[in-house]
């Protein structure tokens, strides 16, 4: 074997040296022959000619030698493969089970990897070069940061830093496309002019923004490839066309390449507008306001600059900026931190970079388990092949040859498994999209089976072949041919039940599946605890719908609520700028009357802008004070409601009523304290929230909340109709130039809340299915080994019974064997689980990582399944008729 490998290397790597040696050898042969001929009396030249004739031509001989060498390797390999196919075809049942087991293990891994690939490894689809991109965060790292920079701060950082080759800023929000058929709600970004240049995106049609468009932009827009396809019929003459966005005309100047969908991982951006147009579009003046933090900022590091250096550079600048403009930076920490995109706080990676590697870990455990299963199958099968292998060893096959042959069989199994896994993956890679709930956010999360994923799948297949193939091959080839052939003649038992390796594998299988089942159990229990936790409002029978807010939204809102409340079947209705557990709740920086912040304490607090009777409609109880009413309008006193967590943080032990909160320079007086409610993720604990009346706020996206008396789904149409009916009487409809005015995301609160536990559901679903597969694999493993060992012991059992053993004794004998293995596996598995489940801690809600009920329940389930798996062969063994069995032997 080793010589073969050496010569293989010599052939492949030292081809030139080999050719030289061959040339030398043949030349020396020609000389030897020439001398012979000269001795026979030829002249030197004639002798040389004769020598060459006898040799048959130097090049021809070389060719023959080369062919012989190359041919042997291919021939051997082809023979091994042929032989492998034949051997597997002889036991199709074994091959099918092994291949399917491996395919499941491999498919689980490549599926999870395809998601990692399309999120963590490729955070910006359509851009290949993302390793030197960083996101720039100001203030505390959070899972749901508010865009942290003002335009003026951004511009100072961009123009004065020495560590970045580019710094881009953007703000995204919903935008409404009109005048192009049905009005469409899009997700658009206001960007700095260098946006496409820093990312390295070149439009496929038209152009990106020019540097002058940063300060004095015309009304220009770049649209995405997807929007170009869906709304402009992929018309190549679209550049130069004018479209209306939020009722303002824009000229399309470019179309981005397919695949590119903005730089916010997991969200699809449809169009880009220069950020200075904020003034024209939203009527606000954020670009000129140093205290308005609204931009997300990404930078590209200069070559050779580390993120730490860049962080230091930007922090120095930020310190100077904060000193120069103290009033704009009060109440918000100015510490800057940079993150690579794979764990950037902006976009979905901030959640996925924790969840996906965990799932990949679980999938790897599943693959190990699959390998242990197949290894055990191979061992069992090798018992049946002992005679064949003994004979091959006896007639002179080297041990290396036998091992190679067995490994080629393993390789064939693994590659077949990998092939099926790839087929499975074409479906499973897309299942991530099934978790995308009904949400207004343009979520775009999915896996894709690209070349990298296929290569990894192949890698996983080869790895499994090595994992499950090596030990059995080594063991099988280590048999003593003489002993085997003697033993076959009439031994009492076949020897597998004595095999420590088989036993060890079963123990390994049980401990691995215990680990997977415990992880699954923890995730599922945590999800259950989340769902049963107090969310602080009643999600039942609520219809949600969104509409476009326009300057007259106050009257429109009042008319709409009046109309809805007079509709039969409607219990109550209100408005809000967010809906719970849907990632739509905003935050804002505030000043709290009577509270002095710690240095660097973030005063960024979640804010709900809500309509009259919000708390009674949502059934969120008020602890003191009153609900918002129809009278909390523009002319009245500015009022606010805070929740209990807000009071606990800022005014502990005090009466909150009458205290004041400052937001954007305006002071609001607290008129009510509400119970805590969950608005972001179920997994979070209570966080401070303050609420402001919708009718005292500027324009804001509006979501109608309607509680109905029956099935909310059957009311969805009615709610949409009500909005359109009120709309028909307002100047809005003519503004949109359309008979049907835009109503979006008509859904139920329960459906829209799916986003509040999406990552936990996702983890629980996959951990749960891995756990289920693990249980199935372990059951098959225990059953296989116990059944086989029992069959091998038929003669022994028959003798025991002939000597007077009862059926119960035989049952006990066999079941005890299974039980011993199971208990050993449980022991190892419990220790491993206690050590490893701590990595789940951050993902769990309401259960500890060593949750005793989970550990106990899973152990019991596994033990009973294992007992059942050993009981079946035991019962069969106990039915043996000793006379028949012994005669048969």
């Amino acid at each position, binding site marked *: 074997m080793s*010589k*073969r490998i050496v*010569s293989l290397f010599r052939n492949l790597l030292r081809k030139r040296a080999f050719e030289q*040696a061959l040339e*030398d*050898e*043949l030349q*020396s*042969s020609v*000389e*030897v*022959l020439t*001398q*012979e001929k000269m001795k026979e009396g030829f002249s030197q030249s004639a002798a040389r000619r004769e020598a060459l004739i*006898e*040799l*048959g031509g130097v090049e*021809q*001989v070389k060719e*023959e*030698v080369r*062919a*012989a*060498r190359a041919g*042997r390797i291919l021939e051997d390999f082809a023979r091994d493969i042929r032989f492998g196919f034949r051997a597997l075809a002889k036991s199709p049942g074994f091959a099918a089970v092994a291949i399917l087991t491996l395919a499941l293990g491999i498919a689980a891994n490549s599926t999870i990897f395809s998601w990692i690939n399309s999120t963590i490894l490729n955070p910006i689809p359509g851009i290949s070069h993302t390793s030197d991109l960083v996101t720039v965060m100001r203030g505390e790292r959070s899972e749901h940061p508010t865009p942290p920079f003002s335009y003026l701060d951004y511009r100072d950082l961009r123009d004065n830093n020495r560590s970045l080759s580019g710094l881009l800023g953007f703000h995204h929000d919903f935008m409404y496309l009109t005048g192009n058929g049905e009005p469409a709600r899009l997700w658009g970004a206001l960007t700095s002019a260098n946006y496409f240049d820093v990312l390295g995106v070149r439009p496929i049609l038209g152009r990106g923004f020019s540097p002058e468009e940063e300060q004095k932009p015309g009304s220009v827009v770049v649209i995405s490839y997807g929007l170009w396809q869906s709304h402009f019929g992929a018309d190549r003459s679209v550049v130069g066309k004018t479209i209306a966005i939020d009722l303002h005309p824009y000229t399309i100047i470019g179309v981005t390449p397919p695949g590119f969908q903005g730089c916010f991982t997991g969200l699809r951006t449809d169009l880009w507008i220069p950020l200075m147009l904020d003034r024209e579009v939203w009527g606000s003046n954020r670009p000129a306001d140093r205290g308005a933090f609204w931009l997300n900022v990404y930078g590209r590091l200069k070559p050779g600059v580390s993120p730490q250096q860049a962080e230091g550079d930007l922090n120095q600048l930020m310190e100077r900026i904060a000193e120069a403009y103290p009033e704009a930076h009060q109440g918000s920490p100015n510490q800057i931190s940079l993150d690579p995109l794979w764990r950037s706080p902006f976009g979905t990676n901030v959640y996925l970079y924790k969840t996906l590697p965990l799932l990949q870990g679980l999938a790897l455990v599943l693959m190990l388990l699959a390998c242990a299963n197949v290894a055990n199958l191979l061992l069992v099968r090798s018992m049946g092949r002992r005679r064949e292998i003994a004979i091959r060893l006896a007639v*002179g096959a080297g041990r290396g040859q036998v091992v190679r042959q067995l490994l080629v069989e393993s390789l064939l199994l693994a590659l077949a498994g990998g092939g099926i896994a790839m087929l499975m993956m074409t479906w499973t890679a897309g299942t991530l999209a099934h978790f995308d709930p009904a949400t207004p956010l343009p979520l775009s999360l999915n896996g894709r089976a690209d070349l990298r994923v296929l290569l990894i799948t192949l890698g996983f297949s080869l790895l499994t072949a090595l994992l499950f193939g090596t030990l059995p091959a080594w063991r099988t080839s280590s048999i003593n041919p003489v002993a085997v052939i003697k033993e076959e003649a009439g031994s009492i038992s076949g020897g597998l039940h004595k095999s420590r390796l088989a036993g060890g594998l079963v123990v390994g299988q049980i401990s691995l599946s215990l680990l997977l089942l415990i992880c699954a159990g923890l995730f599922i229990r945590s999800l259950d605890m989340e769902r049963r936790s107090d969310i602080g409002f009643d999600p039942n029978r609520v219809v949600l719908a969104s509409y476009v807010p326009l300057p007259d939204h106050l009257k429109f809102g009042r008319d709409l609520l009046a109309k809805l409340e007079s509709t039969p079947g409607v219990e109550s209705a209100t408005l809000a700028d967010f809906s719970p557990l849907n990632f739509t709740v905003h935050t804002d920086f505030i000043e709290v009357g009577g509270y002095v912040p710690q240095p660097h304490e973030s005063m960024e607090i979640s804010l709900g802008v809500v309509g009259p009777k919000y708390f009674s409609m949502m059934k969120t109880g008020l602890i003191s004070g009153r609900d918002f009413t129809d009278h909390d309008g523009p002319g009245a006193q500015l009022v606010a409601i805070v929740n209990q967590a807000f009071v606990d943080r800022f005014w502990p032990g005090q009466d909150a009523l009458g205290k004041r909160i400052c937001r954007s320079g305006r002071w609001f007086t607290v008129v009510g304290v509400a119970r805590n409610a969950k608005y972001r993720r179920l997994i979070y604990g209570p966080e401070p929230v303050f609420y402001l009346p919708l009718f005292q706020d500027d324009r804001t996206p509006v979501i109608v909340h309607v509680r109905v008396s029956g099935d909310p789904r059957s009311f969805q149409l009615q709610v949409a109709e009500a909005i359109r009916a009120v709309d028909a009487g307002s100047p809005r409809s003519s503004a949109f130039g359309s008979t049907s005015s835009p109503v979006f995301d008509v859904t139920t609160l329960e459906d829209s809340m799916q986003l509040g536990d999406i990552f936990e559901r996702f983890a629980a679903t996959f951990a749960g299915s891995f756990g289920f597969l693990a249980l199935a694999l372990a059951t098959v493993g225990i059953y296989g080994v116990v059944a086989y060992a029992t069959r091998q012991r038929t003669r022994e059992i028959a003798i025991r019974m002939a000597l007077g053993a009862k059926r119960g004794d035989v049952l006990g004998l066999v079941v005890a064997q299974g039980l011993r293995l199971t208990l050993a596996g449980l022991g190892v598995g419990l220790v491993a689980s206690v050590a490893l489940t701590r990595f789940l801690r951050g993902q769990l809600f309401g259960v500890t990582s060593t949750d005793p009920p989970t550990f106990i329940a899973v152990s019991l389930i596994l033990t009973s399944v294992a007992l059942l798996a050993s009981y079946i062969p035991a019962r069969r063994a106990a039915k043996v008729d000793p006379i028949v069995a012994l005669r048969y032997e």
Partner: protein
Amino acid sequence: MGEKRTDLLRGTLDLLVLKAISLEPLHGVAISRRITQITRGAFQVSFGSLFPSLHRMEERGWVEAEWRSSDNNRRAKYYRLTSTGRAQLKTEERQWNQVVKIMAAAVESS
């Protein structure tokens, strides 16, 4: 050049080569001469068959090669049996004897 005969006896070429170098290491030309000699001139092995056979057996580890000076002070590549090669020679001899016996019995039986 005995093409036909070596064709007929393809399986025996390895045996002859192993036999030829079983006494002492030889270089390629000398192996060819030795085979002619021990078969009393019946076989003249072509170099186009001999060298591939030698390289094959070297890969299998039956023979080892080394460069050394030949009788008349020229460097040549000498082939030598290894211990596995010696075992292989025994096996092939045994198999050959069996074939001869079986074939002889078969021919005589008719």
